[in-house]
């Protein structure tokens, strides 16, 4: 996201706009500015205070407006649009309730540094502060959840504000910017002159290259390390530093662990890529981090979901942290070398002088941890011997993702919602390319999946897009099915339908003695529901049906499709680092031997003469492993 001026210039040319001054209304100026910023799609919802701009849109057919069914959908769509390409996504809403409905999407974009610009109507300037109809202080409300926001108070400043908004959204550490425009400013007329000089903001200048001394210090730490590991985050793909990351890892022979949003930073098929770290990361990855003597953190922010207990986090390691946001350095984890800069630039600086270094012993240790993880693996090819914990004849959510990965050749853009299915996607869908996984990481926003997938597909119509959603989160924004139909957006929806708020149920199982309060759901028939919108659907209840269903979905190239995957209700996402526990203190799935051993012990216990308390009696004694009891069985 570096060549912001060229984007504007290009837009200027494409829009064929002349630089001669013309008199326009504020609403028209908004549209002109959008065109010049290269915007082609606006996601939004009309209402009184933004009506002048909606009227002006009729004169700008180059700006395609997508009518969402809720403003939350508009902000998530803009976010999904932005994440799929790195272009700024645009959402539009009216004042008051329209603006407040955008809030969840804005906060989601803020936490994941996604560049969106939200334009809201506001009551006329004279009425501001009078509690006028549909007045709400949206710049106040969004102050802590935007990178910056503006209340435009005169038409003269409108072009400049619009330009700054896009500049701030897309440069540096990207993020959401909101522009609140009173209705009278939209109606007023003024000579429109688009500023052409480069934007200079006294208080805003994103850093670029690192200081030489810091590069030296980082290189020295790398040179003397024996067990180094790279922690690659979202920043890599946002900076477009994917090639540099691979080169650094290859040249210095350093393995790479990914954050959730770091997936796509490097191909997960790359031999140096270990996979995801953190709460539901690979056990071997977390072990490697804990045992490392050097962490090289690139464009990640040591979120509590990836560090676990900070007091014991990677205790024996030195730490290098590269980030474009100075406030991230030493925020959660104190580091030895903190480098503020654009990742592409900094990595190129490092690459010039980094030395090849052998790490065989270190790779051998990681391979041992990995072999242990493989033993415990539950998702295996259908014809391979299965882990005994797999319940016979039941469909597992994890299997669905693994097979979806296979049948889409690992090439789809996947957009997830939040919950167990999101973690299975992270574990079993191996991404090769940047921007190919879109997920709400920082805020963990249920309801993100479907609208973000619609935005992503509209941003990348050439790409196959799958929305992988839970039955809970899907119901938070499923009204956007209508948007997908109205716009004929060819997004494939896969509902991982377990009849539960699965992730919360998992916590209740582990930490609240299986009291499943308010997590079971009575769901609608999702197929019938989708059919009411005219959407073709399939229901899948067995693993053998997955391939055909996926292929049938992929064959549909018109509007959306939906598959209802009815999966095992009480499955668990393993491994799991309980919140606040040490990163390598994971709840693991047992190995097949451990599993059989535990099964035998249970059988013996069941025959013992002492009276059993009802809780300790497995509910289905003879049936194959009922995951319902997993938590209590493994000492949680």
């Amino acid at each position, binding site marked *: 996201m570096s060549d912001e001026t060229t984007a504007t210039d290009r837009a200027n040319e494409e829009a064929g706009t002349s630089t001669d001054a013309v008199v326009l209304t504020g609403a028209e100026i908004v549209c002109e500015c959008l065109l010049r910023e290269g915007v082609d799609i606006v996601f939004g919802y009309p209402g009184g205070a933004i009506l002048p701009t909606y009227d002006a849109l009729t004169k700008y057919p180059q700006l395609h407006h997508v009518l969402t069914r809720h403003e939350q959908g508009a902000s998530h769509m803009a976010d999904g649009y932005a994440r799929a390409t790195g272009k700024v996504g645009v959402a539009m809403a009216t004042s008051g309730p329209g603006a407040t409905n955008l809030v969840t999407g804005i906060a989601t974009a803020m936490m994941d540094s996604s560049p969106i610009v939200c334009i809201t109507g506001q009551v006329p300037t004279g009425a501001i502060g009078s509690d006028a109809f549909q007045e709400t202080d949206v710049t106040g409300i969004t102050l802590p959840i935007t990178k910056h926001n503006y209340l435009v108070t005169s038409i003269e400043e409108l072009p400049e504000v619009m330009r700054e908004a896009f500049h701030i959204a897309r440069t540096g550490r990207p993020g959401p910017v909101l522009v609140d425009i009173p209705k009278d400013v939209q109606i007023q007329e003024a000579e429109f002159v688009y500023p052409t000089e480069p934007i200079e903001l006294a208080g805003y200048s994103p850093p670029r290259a690192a200081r030489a001394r810091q590069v030296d210090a980082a290189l020295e730490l790398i040179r003397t390390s024996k067990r180094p590991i790279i922690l690659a985050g979202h920043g890599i793909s946002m900076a477009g530093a994917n090639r540099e990351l691979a080169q650094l890892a290859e040249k210095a022979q350093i393995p790479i662990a990914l954050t959730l949003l770091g997936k796509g930073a490097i191909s997960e098929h790359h031999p140096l890529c270990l996979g995801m770290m953190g709460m539901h990361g690979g056990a071997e990855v977390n072990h490697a981090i804990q045992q490392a003597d050097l962490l090289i953190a690139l464009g990640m922010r040591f979120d509590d979901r990836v560090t676990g207990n900070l007091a014991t986090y990677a205790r024996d390691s030195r730490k290098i942290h590269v980030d474009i946001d100075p*406030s991230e350095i030493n925020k959660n984890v104190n580091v030895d070398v903190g480098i503020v800069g654009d990742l592409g630039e900094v990595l190129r600086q490092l690459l010039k002088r980094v030395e090849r270094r052998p790490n065989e012993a270190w790779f051998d240790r990681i391979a041992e941890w990995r072999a242990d993880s493989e033993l415990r693996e539950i998702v295996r090819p259908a014809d391979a011997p299965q882990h005994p914990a797999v319940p016979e004849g039941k469909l597992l959510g994890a299997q669905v993702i693994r097979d979806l990965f296979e049948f889409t050749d690992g090439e789809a853009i996947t957009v997830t919602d939040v919950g167990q299915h999101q973690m299975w996607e992270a574990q079993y869908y191996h991404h090769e390319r940047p921007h190919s996984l879109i997920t709400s990481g920082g805020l963990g926003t249920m309801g993100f999946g479907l609208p973000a997938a619609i935005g992503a597909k509209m941003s990348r119509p050439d790409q196959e897009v799958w929305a992988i959603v839970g039955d809970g989160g899907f119901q938070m924004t499923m009204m956007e099915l209508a948007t997908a139909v109205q716009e004929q957006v060819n997004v494939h929806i896969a509902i991982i339908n377990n009849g539960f708020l699965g992730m919360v149920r998992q916590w209740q199982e582990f930490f609240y003695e299986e009291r499943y309060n308010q997590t079971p759901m009575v769901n609608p028939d999702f197929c019938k529901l989708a059919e009411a919108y005219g959407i073709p659907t399939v229901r899948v209840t067995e693993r053998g049906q997955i391939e055909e269903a996926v292929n049938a979905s992929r064959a549909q190239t018109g509007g959306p499709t939906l598959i209802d995957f009815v999966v095992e209700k009480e499955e668990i996402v393993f491994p799991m680092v309980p919140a606040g526990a040490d990163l390598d203190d994971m709840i693991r799935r047992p190995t097949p031997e451990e599993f059989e051993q535990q099964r035998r012990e249970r059988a013996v216990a069941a025959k013992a003469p002492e009276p059993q308390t009802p809780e300790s009696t497995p509910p289905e004694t003879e049936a194959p492993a009922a995951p319902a009891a997993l938590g209590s069985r493994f000492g949680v």
Partner: protein
Amino acid sequence: MAKHILAALVENRPGVLARVANLFRRRSFNIDSLSVGRTQRDEMSRMTIVMESDSAEADRLVKNLYKLVDVVHVDHLHSQPSVVREMALVKVKASSDNRREVIQLCDIFRARIIDVSAESLVVEITGEEEKLENFTELVRPFGIVEMVRTGMIALGRGGHTLKDEGFKPNRSRAAARRNVL
């Protein structure tokens, strides 16, 4: 733990104070005092922020202030010689019996009496924090009716100034810049 004094030059725009105040709350910074006012340049205001914290925390505040688009420059006055002042207005009970004593105290502290009534005096006192505190302790037995303090303000000595070169005011924004604090 020590007292940290930060000086911030900010663009004189609507909402700047709200942004800074929000930052304190949102990132749980404990601020002792904040004072804001115009500078020699119309388009800039200067804030003096005082916080009791360790230096890592003060660093964290500096970095987070810089994240605000309207904040142009921040300095940690800790690291350079500077002059620090605070002003207080103190309304002290003073009847004809003890007025002389209060006036004597004011003389010692070089405080000025700016209002006199039958029951009380209003005293203006300027200085470093310690001086203000000593003064209020000494007049407390007479009875403090009410008082107000400005919070600290500070400037670097001599050549130590906050950088504002390179800052170009924005023409079309000038209109929106009236009375924004």
